[in-house]
């Protein structure tokens, strides 16, 4: 069986490698077309990645990407497309920031409380889409996109001065959170500080793997994603599963803004990072919904995001990184599907070959003229 395992690893790696190479080549084409060097931006960005302060930035960014991507991946594993991670994490961050500014408990209670608030808020927002889907059959794609827009308005309303808003200069914040809710970081000296929440992100990844692959619930969830009809016949309550997956996805999404909120800015303001949810979709796709794959993908995209600003100083547009990110998404979708089909076909072929070989061997052992016949028999099956 080892042969098949090795091949599976190869297939798992082939998809992303092909996609990344294709994306790089296409980006270079764009660079050449705009009359620029197709190589230098890469070397500039790689050079950036050798600086330790940039490395810290990349890791911090990757931590947030990772959580957002996990949230998307939970949906993907079940054939649910939670585009609403973006709204879920922003709303969760804002509500958490408000709670953190108005409630003051000892750190041992405050931090778990804030995490719980974030998860519940995210789950609440995604749960709306879940309930709409299970009761009214509304596509979660449509409802979560709309909920993103609604979240923006809700946040805008709640951060008005007469509600929870606290203007600071020309920025609108929710006030500074009590320091008991600040999540301790890992000090890297002059390079900065790695968010302590990155550890939580890693734990979330481990938990994700454990639950999906080692528990009954995870099996039901994956079965539903692989074949809804087969899962239903096997006794999975599809509606409950949709709602549960949506709630978990939203709860994890709620965590995505926590690293920066609890570890750095300690308030929700106009400059709070946006678009994590959409980046998370890219990363979940690139990482093939696997916790390890997502980690690599998160680091890669974080690298693009944090190493590209340096391009501006050398006369390149840092939007090259955005172009490349877009191309990665397209290349990933194409190459994964191609590799998947190829892999399935190849396995069918090899199973056929092995069975035929086994039959041949059996025929030879018998040493009679049934040899030819048994091979054909297998071939026809």
């Amino acid at each position, binding site marked *: *069986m080892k042969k*098949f*395992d090795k091949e599976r690893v190869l297939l798992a790696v082939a998809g992303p490698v092909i996609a990344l190479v294709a994306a790089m080549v296409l980006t270079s084409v764009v660079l050449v077309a705009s009359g620029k060097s197709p190589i230098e931006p890469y070397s500039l960005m790689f050079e950036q990645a050798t600086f330790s302060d940039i490395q810290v930035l990349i890791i911090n960014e990757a931590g947030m990407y990772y959580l957002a991507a996990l949230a998307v991946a939970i949906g993907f594993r079940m054939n649910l497309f939670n585009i609403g991670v973006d709204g879920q994490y922003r709303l969760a961050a804002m509500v958490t920031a408000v709670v953190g500014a108005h409630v003051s408990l000892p750190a041992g209670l405050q931090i778990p409380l804030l995490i719980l608030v974030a998860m519940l808020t995210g789950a609440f927002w995604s749960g709306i889409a879940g309930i709409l889907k299970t009761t009214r059959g509304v596509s979660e794609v449509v409802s979560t996109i709309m909920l993103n827009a609604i979240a923006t308005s809700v946040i805008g309303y709640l951060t008005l001065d007469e509600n929870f808003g606290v203007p600071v200069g020309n920025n609108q914040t929710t006030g500074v959170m009590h320091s008991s809710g600040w999540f301790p970081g890992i000090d890297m000296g002059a390079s900065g500080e790695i968010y302590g929440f990155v550890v939580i992100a890693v734990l979330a990844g481990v938990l994700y793997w454990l639950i999906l*692959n*080692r*528990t*009954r*619930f*995870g*099996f*039901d969830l*994956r*079965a539903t994603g*692989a*074949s809804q*009809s*087969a*899962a*239903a*016949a*096997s*006794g*999975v*309550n599809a509606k409950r599963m949709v709602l549960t997956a949506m709630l978990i996805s939203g709860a994890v999404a709620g965590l995505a803004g926590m690293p920066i909120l609890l570890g750095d800015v300690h308030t929700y303001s106009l400059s709070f990072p946006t678009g994590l949810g959409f980046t998370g979709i890219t990363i979940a796709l690139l990482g093939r919904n696997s916790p390890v794959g997502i980690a690599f993908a998160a680091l890669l995209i974080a690298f693009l995001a944090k190493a590209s600003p340096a391009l501006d100083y050398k006369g390149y547009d840092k939007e090259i990184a955005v172009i490349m990110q877009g191309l990665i998404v397209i290349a990933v979708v194409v190459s994964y599907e191609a590799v998947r089909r190829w892999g*399935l*076909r*190849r*396995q*069918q*072929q*090899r*199973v*056929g*070959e*092995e*069975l*035929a070989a*086994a039959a041949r061997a059996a025929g030879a052992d018998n040493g009679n003229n049934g040899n030819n016949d048994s091979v*054909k*028999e*297998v*071939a*026809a*099956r």
Partner: protein
Amino acid sequence: MELNGITKRFPGVVANHDIHLSVRKGTVHALVGENGAGKSTLMKILYGMQKPDEGTIAVDGTQVAFTSPADAIARGIGMVHQHFMLADQLTVLENIVLGSEKLYGIGAGARRKIAEISDRYGLGVRPDAYVEDLGVADRQRVEILKVLYRGATTLILDEPTAVLVPQEVDALFDNLRELKSEGLSVIFISHKLGEVLSVADDITVIRRGTTVGTAIPSETTPRQLAELMVGSELPTPETAESTVTDRPMIEVEGLKLLAEGSDLPLLDDISFTIHEGEVLGLAGVEGNGQTELIDALIGLKHADSGVIRMAGEDITDWATRRRREGGVGYIPEDRHRHGLLLESPLWENRILGHVTEQPNTRGKGGFWLDIKGAQADTRRIVEEYDVRTPGIDVTAASLSGGNQQKLIVGREMSHKPRFLIAAHPTRGVDVGAQAQIWDQIREARREGLAVLLISADLDELIGLSDTLRVIYRGRLVADADPASVTPEELGSAMTGAASGHLEHVEEDTGGAGDSGDARAGDSGDVQEEAAPEDEAR
């Protein structure tokens, strides 16, 4: 039309190998072979849906190479698929014209042409009827007309009788004879020998992907043909001694299921009892409520009224999972959709449907999967049920249909079901696996299993069942004793022509009895005739 040395390889299998076939003008040429012998692949090649790896096709003496069905149609080759390709919401006329508007327009010209074809071949097609209102046989005639309308001179019919009851089969054969007398050629694919012998002028037998012989119907017995087709001794689905007890396992009373959002009953007043050790066979043309009945029994759809009891316990409101834990085994009619996770490894497929049970989880209601346990048990199933696979880590999709089915049967039997729903348990399965699956059902039945057997294969139904019921338009309209009933008698109940208890009449009134004998049913009759010869050898 002539085919020479056609070979087609698919990943891992040679679907067709060195096929030779020559069809004379104005004849019905039957192509017979077991399920999975490679008939459908050959037809796809003929119809331009797939390209052969080797070999040549010649039409009227000129060599042709088809790259799409359009090429084949241009050469006068038309195909009537087993599953009809008609738009329900359109009329017959619209369906026929659809895609060929240029030929005779869409108005009076087309109508004239349709009427002309319909009259010439006695198809009796009503151009303004909506397809959704037509029965299966009528739809098939529309499909045939559609092909003729496009100017086909050679018609390929893929298992045309699979969806028909015996009486409709006769009507179809009359149509085919009309076509033949007008100089058209028909390629008729089937695995039912009786039908083949009654309608064909030439027969080509295909086995394991290659043509193994040709036969002339008038000089061939079903026995010879069957031997050619199977290449070995024929298995029979007959059960020897009765194991029926008087302890009811499944009782269904007044079960009613309405179509979603309407008060149209899909199932109406269904009542039956299956005892321990009893196989209840359900006959019926597909689409008469069998799927809904299965869904209601497995818990995918909940009854609008009526009661389902298992071993005396009311399970009407139980969810699917609880029913399965309670001992309901399920061999689904569509294993790809309902029985397998195609892209998952075999051992995960072994867990499917029994995720809450040992050896897949530790303890009852366990939270964690027992992956080692599931894998070990998958190896046992592979061994005991002769699933041909190089290992348990390959995906279910890489196994052949028969081996997939063996895995499913093994899985369901491993949980000691008390009640088994077996829907088409041997569909698309090769002869060896078929006999094996029958054996397993018989064995479980001896141990007190109650089985609901649903099958389109009337011989399988008659052979395996202890009791027979006929479902028609969502109602159980007739019952019969499998020891004496014939496929024809069952067939008439399947069309709604007969109801109540089907009493076998030994001496039928002259003509009808003769025709029944002459047609020799299908492979089951062959087997019956075969049995004495077996003893003689």
